[in-house]
Every structure is written in C-alpha cells, then in structure tokens.
C-alpha cells in the first residue's frame, strides 16, 4: 500500500443522484465516506450546476431539476468527504483508487467502492456528425445548465427519446427558436411498445411525458419517421438532409444540429476494474452483471444509478440508497435501516414504466450500424466501411478490429465508438452483440500526465516489482 493513501470505508465515484444518495446514506450510518467527482460542483449531468445556476429565470428548467438541490443539501449535511474536479483513473483489485486533481494524483484506499459513473449519450453516427456545430443534444443542455448558453441561429434537433422533448422544452423556455425536430422514432416501435403501455400509464414517467409533449407540440415543426440523416458543411455544419417514408429527400439550412438517441451506461471504469458486463437486448448497451443490491463480479465493487442500466435520475438515487444499504449491513451489522423496503418499492414503480419507454425509443438499426462512408470512431477517423472490411478479413471482435484499423484507440478510449463497433461486427458476422463482445477497457481510464504518475508515492512492493 502507498504511504500517503487516504483511508476510508466507502469510496463513491460520481456525484450524480446515485452517488450523492449512496454517499449520504453511508456517511449518515457512520461509515468514513469519500465522494470523488470529475465535475466542478455536485449534481452529475442531470443536476449539473444546480447549486450555482447562472439562470435567473428558474422556470427554464423543470421543478425536477431544482429538486436535485435537496439531494446535495442532504449530502453536505451527511459528513461525507467530497473531492470535486477529481478524475478517477485507476482502481486496483485491493480497492486502491488513483485520482487526478489539479494536476496531482492522490491515492484513496477503500473497503468498498460504489461506481456511480452515470450515463453518456449513445453515439449517433451519421455522415457529417464530426463537423463543428453538430453536437449531442445533452451538450446543449449542459451548456444551458452550467453557463446559461442557448444556441442561436437555426437549430435542428434530430433523434428519438425523452430527452428530445425535455431539451426542446427547455430551449423554448429559454427563448430559443427551434426550426425543426426530426423524429427518428421508427413507426414499428409504436406497435412493439403498445403491450407495455399499461405499465407506463401507472408509472411516474407518464405525467412528465405528457407535460413535455404539450410544451413542444404546436411550437416546433415536427417531422416524424425520419431516415437517412446527413450533416453537410465545409468548416462547420451548414445543412442537414433527411428522408421520410415515401418522400424524396429534403435539406434544411442549419447553424446547430443537435443529435440524440438515448443514453447508455458509462461503463469504462467498471469494465477496466474487471466488472463483468452483459449486453442488454432492450436498451442495446452493455450493463454490469449485478446482484439485487448492485454488487458486481469484483468483490467490494458495486455499481449504482444509470451506470447499472438506464433508469433515470429518481431511480438512480434509489439505486444509490440500495447499494449503500448493502454496504452498511455488511460493515455495521445490526444497524436499523428504514430505507430498504422504501427503495425497493420505488424502484419497482420506475421499472414498470421503463419497458414502454425503452421499446418506443429504441434507436433504429440504420443509426446504430451506419453506412460505409460514416465515421464510427471519431478519434481515429475510422469509417464503418473500414470496420466491415476488417471483419471480412477475419477479425471476430472489437479488440481485433481495433488492432487492425485503430478504432477505439484514440483519447476517448472507445467511449464514443464502442457500441457502434460491437454492433457493426455483430451484424457483419451475423452473431449476437454478446458474442461479438466489447473493447477491453484499461487503466488509466482517463488521460493522466507522466509527471503525475512519476510523482506518485512508491510503496516497497511497487519498488520491488521493477528493481532487479
């Protein structure tokens, strides 16, 4: 063990709803708890900047957002330690966590780790999606929350999923004018989702969904069943072209094109720590294999919140509580915990509505497994066609493809292309995504300078490992 390690009972990674709720519960039960978060302030993406909002008009963001402040208040009162701007880049099997902050790396040693790394937006590979001015829809949302920025000029939103309507309503409330919403939800999703409608009608999602649809419909041109999206431009995006069923192609002039087709778990840290994952055939992404409390295949490591499978902010907080309870029960046997049944009841309610949403908003194949001329790996500029060619030459999975054509080898470490590469390989080989497999994630999970690594305190075992 390193000489200068910070010792704690529980280390939580990520200060979104799951991480905040988990850390609060652990700390209140008397466990020495450390919350590490890459953000400048707690809240994660969903409650980004809620404690230091630049928005004067609070009605731009919905009440659910402002309620995030309560989680943060509870966290601050819980006695947990908190490190902002702390980027976790390694977790060893004996739960030593290396994190970088202000250009220096520190080591924390924990008895248990809760990974609450949240979600990232699913890649939306279309021709031209690398042009400046084409952004993930969540990017515009995060700029609105943290800096009070709204896109100016001609805005087009393209994609599917609840966030399309949420972000559109927020931008409208902030005074932006949206030229069009190009809805890529396929027609067949409606009939496939229908059997799951009753669960949705009795879920907490219904009221919000209705409110959002009412806020946006009638104020924005909505184009349904959009296919064949393509962004055009030289030094930045200038146009977006598309087709709709049975119609010739259309082109719109655009200054900002915002893409979205759902969010997926941010699995990188968990995968690099050795946590087993499996393909979720409904949410079409990798999710960690978990027991009912969030325990993983790696002893001492739990996963909570959207990193454990997409469930939304409120479900995430309950899953954080759930993971915390499991840890508290093992570290403080006999401790009375009133939250256990509450958490399970709440989670069941959210699960009820999820199936409908996930089926209705499942992104269509053509935007997950793109055309040959589309860049799949943004970092290394590898097209879907190059990936298919590598498969045709005999590459059986993403790691082999990576070795041949460099996809997933750039600075994002495959976060942006991983799902695309898995699905391209699976479809080309006519095997399941599970069989195709995923990129092997490795530490450092985020870039770290050589100087930081060199300045780490060395224990005897580390020195003995390299000195002959």
């Amino acid at each position, binding site marked *: 063990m390193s000489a200068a390690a910070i010792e704690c009972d529980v280390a939580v990674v990520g200060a979104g709803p799951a991480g905040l709720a988990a850390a609060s519960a652990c700390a209140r039960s008397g466990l020495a708890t450390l919350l590490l978060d890459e953000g400048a302030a707690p809240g994660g993406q969903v409650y980004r900047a809620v404690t230091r909002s630049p928005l004067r008009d609070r009605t731009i963001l919905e009440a659910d957002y402002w309620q995030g402040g309560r989680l943060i208040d509870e966290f601050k009162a819980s006695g947990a330690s908190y490190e902002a701007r702390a980027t976790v880049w390694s977790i060893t099997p004996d739960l030593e966590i290396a994190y970088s902050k202000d250009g220096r790396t520190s080591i924390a040693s924990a008895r248990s780790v809760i990974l609450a790394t949240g979600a990232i937006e699913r890649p939306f590979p279309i021709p031209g999606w*690398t042009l400046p001015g084409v952004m993930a829809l969540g990017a515009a949302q995060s700029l609105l929350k943290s800096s009070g920025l709204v896109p100016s000029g001609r805005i087009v939103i393209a994609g599917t999923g609840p966030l399309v309507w949420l972000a559109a309503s927020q931008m409208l409330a902030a005074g932006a004018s949206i030229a069009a919403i190009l809805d890529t939800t396929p027609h067949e999703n409606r009939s496939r989702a229908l059997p799951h409608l009753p669960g949705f009608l009795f879920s907490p999602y219904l009221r919000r969904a209705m409110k959002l649809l009412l806020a946006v419909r009638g104020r924005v041109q909505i184009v349904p069943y959009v296919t064949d999206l393509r962004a055009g431009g030289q030094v930045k995006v200038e146009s977006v072209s598309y087709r709709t069923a049975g119609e010739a192609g259309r082109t719109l002039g655009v200054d900002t094109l915002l893409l979205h087709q759902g969010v997926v778990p941010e699995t990188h840290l968990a995968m690099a720590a050795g946590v087993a994952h499996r393909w979720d055939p409904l949410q079409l992404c990798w999710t960690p294999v978990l027991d009912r409390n969030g325990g993983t295949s790696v002893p001492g490591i739990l996963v909570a919140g959207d990193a454990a499978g997409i469930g939304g902010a409120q479900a995430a907080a309950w899953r954080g509580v759930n993971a915390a309870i499991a840890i508290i029960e093992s570290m403080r046997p006999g401790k009375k915990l009133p939250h256990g049944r509450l958490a399970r009841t709440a989670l069941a309610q959210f699960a009820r509505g999820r199936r409908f949403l996930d089926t209705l908003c499942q992104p269509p194949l053509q935007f997950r497994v793109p055309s040959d001329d589309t860049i799949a790996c943004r970092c290394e500029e590898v097209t879907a066609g190059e990936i298919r060619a590598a498969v045709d030459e005999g590459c059986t999975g993403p790691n082999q493809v990576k070795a041949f054509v460099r996809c997933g080898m750039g600075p994002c470490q495959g976060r942006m292309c991983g799902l695309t590469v898995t699905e391209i390989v699976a479809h080309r080989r006519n095997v399941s995504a599970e069989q195709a497999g995923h990129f092997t994630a490795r530490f450092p999970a985020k870039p770290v300078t050589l100087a930081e690594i060199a300045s780490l305190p060395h224990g005897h075992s580390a020195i003995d490992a390299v000195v002959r």
Partner: protein
Amino acid sequence: MFRRLRDDGEIVTIRVDGRPVDAVAGDSVAAALLAAGVARTRVTDGRGEPRGPYCAIGACFDCLVTIDGIGNRRACTVEVAPGMSIETQGAKREITR
C-alpha cells in the same frame, strides 16, 4: 452560434490563440469558446478536418485544446481562470524527414 441568457456575470479574460476573449466565471473553457463564436477547437491529425465540442461532458475528447501549455486537455472539463491561455490544436499529421 451560442448566446448568453444574461450578460451580468463576472468577466474573466482569457487568451485564445493570443487574442483576448471575455469569458464568465464558472464557464468551462468549451462554453467560453462557444460563446465567443469559436466553433473549431482543433483540426484532426489524420484527415486534417475541423472539430469542435460534441458531448460537453468529458466523454468524447473532441474539444481537446492546449491550456496553459499542456496539450490535449478537454475544454469542457476545465473551468476558465483569469489570464488562462488557450490554444486551439493540431493540423494534419505529415511525415517529414
């Protein structure tokens, strides 16, 4: 391409490719660049193509810039500070003798 909803924030002056740019305290470097109309934050070294911020949450690594002399930093995860020097990065990689 982006506008601010309010203009009374605390001004923090940074330098972007040597030129002074007014940002607002609390801005990420990416937000400050977008608000100042800088859409292209780097040029890729393979195809020499322009890139700008895409995800704005630290996942895509497309907003990489040089900040105070350290290259390849994610503009969306670093907050502006007075006097901070930002350089947009990169050019097509050429093999030279």
